[in-house]
């Protein structure tokens, strides 16, 4: 029998009457985020995202040859995604290998990104997307979508646009964005969301917990606003390596 050296503690107050959250944020405030692209040498494209306490690495391989061969699509690229959590990514060690949750998340991440990819440009090939959660702190799937979308762009895959993602939700009567660990555990509703910002179309949407009609509408709008902010961050992160090159060419470095 193995017992973890970890005890979960529920905070007494999830959100104050003034709308101050357990980590001191306001309802519409995001946690600190940093995005970096091109962090891996062997992958065709890669990105690293630090979002609150999350540390997530995404890599893209392809377009490349399809194995096994029977999965080949003659008219477009096959798109595969794998979401995986490291054994040391959680307070209690996670057994390596896929579980039901990671299989579902792999599917919704793939379906969040696929509409953005011009798969018809790469018939008979495969584009593999890998999302590795090194450290988890609520909102790993949306952080993973942001990183994977940047890794696709970093790999030079032709896309309709970037997919950005953020979770929104409800704690008591407050609609909040970017749920933290406490809100994820004990909040009333959780709604991860991703959008192809070019056309403002939703590519990922899940809800876990009840919201009234007006709360739901407010959540959707807060999600879109948050995602728009993340989308701008993604573009900045993708441009950064080229700005470094530009500065070095101009002799500023």
């Amino acid at each position, binding site marked *: *029998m*193995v*017992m*973890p*050296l*970890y*005890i979960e503690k529920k905070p007494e107050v999830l959100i104050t009457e003034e709308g101050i959250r357990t980590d001191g944020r306001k309802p519409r405030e995001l946690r600190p985020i940093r995005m970096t692209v091109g962090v*891996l*040498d*062997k*992958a065709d494209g*890669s990105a690293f995202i630090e979002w609150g306490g999350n*540390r997530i*690495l*995404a*890599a893209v*391989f392809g377009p*490349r040859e399809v194995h096994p061969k029977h999965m080949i699509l003659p008219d477009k690229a096959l798109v595969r995604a*794998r979401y*995986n959590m*490291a*054994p*040391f*990514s*959680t*307070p*209690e*060690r996670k057994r*390596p*290998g896929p579980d039901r949750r990671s299989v579902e998340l792999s599917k919704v991440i793939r379906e969040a990104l696929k509409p953005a990819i011009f798969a018809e440009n790469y018939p008979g090939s495969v584009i*593999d997307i*890998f999302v*590795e959660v*090194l*450290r*988890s702190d609520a909102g790993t799937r949306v952080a993973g979508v942001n990183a994977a979308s940047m890794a696709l762009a970093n790999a030079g895959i032709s896309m309709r646009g970037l997919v950005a993602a953020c979770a929104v939700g409800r704690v008591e009567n407050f609609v909040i964005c970017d749920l933290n660990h406490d809100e994820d555990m004990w909040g009333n509703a959780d709604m991860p969301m991703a959008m192809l910002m070019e056309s403002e179309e939703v590519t990922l949407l899940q809800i876990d917990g009840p919201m009234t009609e007006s709360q739901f509408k407010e959540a959707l709008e807060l999600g879109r606003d948050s995602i728009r902010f993340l989308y701008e961050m993604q573009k900045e992160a993708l441009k950064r390596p080229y700005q470094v090159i530009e500065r070095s060419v101009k002799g500023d470095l």
Partner: protein
Amino acid sequence: MFGPELITHNLLRDYIRELASQDQRIDGRSLHEFRPIEIKEGTFTKAEGEAWLKLGNTQVLVGVKADVGEPFSDTPNKGVLVSNAELLPLASPAFEPGPPNENSIEVARVVDRAIRSADAIDMSSLVITEGKLVYMIFLDMYVLDYDGNLEDALTMASLIALARAEISEVEVNDEGEMIIKESKWKLRLKDIPVNFTFVKIEDKLLLDPVLEEEQVSDAAITLAIDKEGRVCSIQKKHGMFTMEEIIKAANIARSKWPQITDKIMRVI
């Protein structure tokens, strides 16, 4: 040596062999020189101890997690160490998702063996109640970017992660209940057994091979050296070595031990 996708072009193979015969290498290093070693600063896991290490373009992340549980019945006065390596599909086009294969199992065991054979961890210090309750140390090795020589990179990162680990103290009260305390204890290392991997190309021994050198090599061997300068574990992989070559490899490894240990000591 992983997978058919990584068949090195004949031209590159001939080039690496030609260079080796002249005591040179594709990245400009001398034959017995390590690539730059960098330990990334920051927190990247939820582990009790961790290390993100770069050895040239090879990147590994090792996390040490601790749980408590029952000891094995044949070692009631010893804690438990479980080592596991994952060759993540994002680390190389040749790695595929799935359960550990022979390569990931071998590399995990090579690292584990160096640590155990040198007695680097005092396993009896992991006992809480003899025969009943012990700390279980999980050494999870994650390969993020594969450009050769996982053995040495993972061993260095594992030693750092173990030495950095701070584990919650546990007490058993009179009723036999387990109490997790706020205070932490540090897992101290009694030894620093470093692994040194060599490949043989054109009868030359090359330390710390890059991926392409591994692929074109005639043979490969990994040796661990402890603080007394003793060889405490060896894994010969593909190919053949003469006895003289093995002794030479051990001597080179011994001479490199202080340099690597110094790097490790500086970050733990």
